[in-house]
C-alpha cells in the first residue's frame, strides 16, 4: 500500500485517495482544434521516471493536488503544493 504525501493530511494509504491522472493543462475549448483537444483527452506522456500527476484526497481532506512521483520506485519528491491547477477529464 503506497503512502501518498497528502499536503493536508500527511502520509496516507493510497486507498484513501483517488488517482486522477497525469497533470495536463486544459486547452480553451472554444479555440482548440480537434487534434489539440484530443491530444489533451487521450495522449499521455507515460514516462518511466518522474511524473507530475494529480490526486484527490477522497477519504481525507477532499482536496485536489499535484505530486511528482517516480513511476519506477514510487518515490515522491518536492513538497507537494496545494492549490495547483490539476484539471481532469472525467
Amino acid at each position: 500500500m503506497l503512502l501518498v504525501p497528502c499536503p493536508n493530511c500527511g502520509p496516507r494509504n493510497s486507498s484513501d485517495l483517488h488517482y486522477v491522472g497525469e497533470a495536463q493543462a486544459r486547452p480553451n475549448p472554444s479555440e482548440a482544434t480537434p487534434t489539440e483537444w484530443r491530444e489533451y483527452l487521450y495522449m499521455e506522456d507515460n514516462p518511466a521516471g518522474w511524473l507530475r500527476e494529480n490526486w484527490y484526497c477522497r477519504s481525507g481532506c477532499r482536496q485536489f493536488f499535484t505530486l511528482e512521483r517516480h513511476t519506477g520506485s514510487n518515490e515522491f519528491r518536492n513538497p507537494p503544493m496545494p492549490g495547483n491547477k490539476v484539471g481532469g477529464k472525467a
Partner: protein
Amino acid sequence: MSASELGRLAAQSGEVIDRTSPIRFNWNGNSLTGFKGDTIASALMANGERIVSRSMKYHRPRGYMTADFWDPNGFVQVGDDPNVRSGHRLIEDGMTIEPQNVWPSLDRDIKAANGLVGRFLSAGFYYKTFIKPQKLWPAYERVLSTFAPGGKVDLDTPHRYHDKRYTHPDVVVAGGGPAGMAAAAAAAEVGANVLLVEHEHQLGGHLLWGSDADRAVAAELANRVSAAGVEVLTNTTLTGRYEDNWVGIVQRSHPLAVERLIKARAKILVVAPGLIERPYVFAGNDKPGVMLSGAVRRLVNMYGVKPGARAVVFTANAEGDAAAADLDRVGIDVARVVDARNGENVVSASGSSKSVKSVKLGDGSEVEADLLVTATGWTAPTSLLNMAGDRPVYDEGSARFYPSVTVDNVLSTGGISGDGSVDELVAHGEATGQLAAGRASVVKHRVQALTARSVPVAGPEPEWTADFRPELGRDDHPELFRSTTHGIVDFSEDVGSKDLVAAAKEGYDSVELLKRYTTATMGPAQGKLETVNTVAVLAEARGETIEQVGTTVWRPPYVPITLGGLAGRNFEPVRVSSIQPWHEANGVTPIIAGAWIRPEHYGNPADEVNNTRTNVGITDVTPLGKLDLQGPDVPKLLSQLYTNKWMKLPIGSVRYGLMCAEDGVVLDDGVTGRLGEEHYLMTTTSSGAASIWEWAENWLQTEHPEWQVHVTPVTTGYTSINVAGPKSRELVGRLVDDVDLSAEAFDYMRVRTGTVAGVENCIMWRIGFTGELSFELHVPSGYGLHVWETLMAEGADLGVKPFGLEAQRIMRLEKGHFIVGQDTDGLTQAPAVGMNALIKLDKEDFAGKAELAWAMESDQVPHVVAIQTVDPTIVPGEACQILKGTTNEIVGRITSSRMSPTLNRSVCLGQVDTAHAEAGTELTVLLRNGQRIKANVMSHHAHFDPEGERLRG
C-alpha cells in the same frame, strides 16, 4: 531393519512436548497417540510412520526430510484443510489426518508405475506429445488432470471467522531466533514500540534444538523481550514486505479467530529469518530415511523422536557434526561420519520403497543404514529483502547467497547476514535493534511533522542513524550441490538434476526459462529448499559460475497463506434510507444497487403502476444524489457542469440539466433548484452522486479556484419521497399547510420550502419522472419515516400505495425518459439523446463543449429513440439487436423494454444509427430466440401522454 526402528526416545532436556498430556489423533485410518506439543511429523515418526506421502509425478514414497514447515514431503490433509504442513502443524485431540496424492492408498500406489517410465516423462515432456490427433487432447487432458497433486477442497467448508487488524509499530522484527530476539529487545529497551513475529510455535530459532547452554541463552533473551514490552506473536508469519514498509502478517495463534491478517506500517523492518538447510543432490536423495541435519536435531532434541536405528552422517559443517553427536548421545548407531571437508562424498542411497537400506560413498564403500543425514549448507531466505528491492549475491567461499542492496528502512540480522557464535549473533541483533530504533524515531518525527494535528511535533528532526554495526563473518563452507550422480532437485515438483541439464541443453538455459519449462522452484516450497541447487545445476550445465547464472526472483508471499486468512473480515458497506424498516415490515422485495439496498417492488409492479396512474403512489428515492450549493458563483459552476444555461434561474424554480464529460459523452443528468439568493440544491443520478460531487470539486479547486461556491453533499440528510398520481396534490395538501400547493401558486418545475407533517425545513419540488402530477418531498432524514408513515395513514382513503424501483422504471419508460448508462453507454455523446436544445454552444465554456460542437455538425451519432413493436404483445429483451433488413448488419439495439400496464402494449427505447432514426422508420429487431420482428420508430420519446398534460395538472 524395519519402520519400527522409529519411535520415542527417553525424555530429552530440551523437549517441547508434554509427556503427561497424551493426544489421540487419526492417521490414514488408524488411531495413534502423541503428546501435547508434538507436530504431526514428530507424532507420526514417534509412531513408527516413515512414509507420509507420494511424490507428485512419479508417485515415489516419501518420508520426512526437513520435518519442519518447509518439508516438501510432509503435506497432509487435515479434515477439510488441504496441503497442511505436517512438520509445523501441532496435533490436536481427535484430529483426522490423511495422506495426499495417493491412489488408491499410501502403501500401494498404482501411479507409482509412472516412475518406471520416468526416463520418458522428462520435464516438459507434455509439450512434445499429445499433439496429434488434436481431437484426442481433451481426453488426454482429463487423464492428466487426475494427476494433479495436493489435497481436496471441501466445497462445503464453512466461512470461518477470520480477522484483521492494522498496526503502526516503530520496529517489526521478522524472526525470533537469537538475533531477532536481541534486536527486538534492544529496540524496545531504548523506547521503540516493537512487534516480534515468529513463524514457529516458540521463540528461540535454532537454539531450541541446540545445547542446554543454547537454550539458556534463548530463555534469557525471551525474558528480555518480555520485560521490554515487545509484542510477541508466535505461530505467525510475516508474509510480505510491500511499498513503504507495508507488511503483511498472518497470525495463526489468535485465541478467537482461525487466522488474523495484520497489516503493519513498520517504520523499520528487521529481517531475521535465519537460514534454511539445503538438500544434497544424489541418486536416491528422496528415499524415506534421507534427512537433513536440522530435521534430525529437531526430532531428537525437541520432540524426543528416534529418527532411525543406524545412521550415516554426511557433514560439511558444525551442524552436521552436532547431528552426529546428538544421534550418538541418544544411542543411535552412527555407522559412519562422512566428512565433506576431507573430500569425502555420498554417491547414492538405495533400499526398499519404505526406507533407505544402504548408502554408497565416494570411496566406493557401501554402508548399511536406515538413516542418511546430510549437512551440506544453507539457503538464505532473502525473500523479504527481495521484496524491498534486494538482489542476493553469491559468495563462493561460504557457498551461499547474501543480501547486497542496502535499503534504509529494512535491516537484516542473524544467519541471513553472516555467521557467528551465538554471542556474536546476539550482539549483531542488539546493534541492529538499536539502529532500527534510532531510525524509527526519525521516521516517526517526520510523520508527526507532516500530519496536521492538534499538537505540533517537538524539537528538530533527529539525525538519521548511520549503520554502525560490526559485520558478521562468513565461515568457509565447501560448495556442495550435486554428487557424481543425479538426483531430485525440486522434491515437490519431482524435478531432477537430469531434467534441468536436458532442458538447459534444449535452450531453456536462463534461470527464468528453466524454471518455467521444468517447473523447478514453482511448487509449494517456492524455492526455499531448491533454488540454490537449481542454479548450481544450471551453472554446471552451462559451464558457468553460480554468480554468472544469478538467481531467480522470490515472489511474495513468504509462505503460502490461506485465502480465508487473507480475506479476513470482508467489509462490504451497505446503505439504507430511513424508511428501510418500513419497507422490510411491508413485504418489500429488495434490490441491491451499488451499496444501496432499495425497494424493487412490494408484490406486483404493474399494480403499483396502475395505482399511481389512477390514485396516488409514494416511492422512496432517497439515493438520488443531492448537493447543497452555496455562494455567489453557483450559476457559473452550474453553467460549467451542465450543457444548458443557468445564469438566470429564478428563485423558486427548478431546471433540468444534462452533464457531459470532456469527450462529450453523457455523464449524468438531473434537476437543480434555486432555493435562495445564493443557495441551490442539485440532484444527480443515484449512482453518480459521489462522482459528480468530485467532478464539481475538481472544477472548483483546479480550473476555477476564484469562484466562490461551497458544495456539500446532503444526499442522505434528506429522505426523498416522490408522491405521484392524480391524487397527489390532495394527499400532500393534508400534510402541508404553510405552502400553497395550487397549480397556480406552485406549478411544474418549481421548488418550495415548508413544513410537511410537522417537519420543518422540507424541500418540495414539482417534478417527477412518472409523468403524473407529482411532488418530490425532501425531508430531514431524522423524520423521514414519520413523513412516510403519515403519507400512508393520511392517504388511505385516497388509495395511496407504495411503489418500488421497477414501477418507476416502467413509468419512466412509458414516458420515454432515458437512463444514463442504460439507454446511453460509454460512447454516447449528448446529441444522441434528442435534447439538442439543451446544448448551448454559445456559452463561453462548459464541460464537453469542444466535442459537442463537432458532434453536432456530424451525422455519425447514434440516436436514442422510442420504439414500438408491431405486435404489441412482444417485448423484445433489452440488448436485442436492431438489424438492417434481412442482413446481419447491426444498426442499433433495444436499450430498455417493458410491457406497459398503462398502454397494454410493449414499449421500448433504443439506439439506432442516423439512417434509422427518422420517426416512422420500420426496424427489424432480432429477438433473443432468433426470431426477427418488425418495430417502428416513434415520433416522440414519450409513449404515454407526450404532451405532458398529466404532470402539469
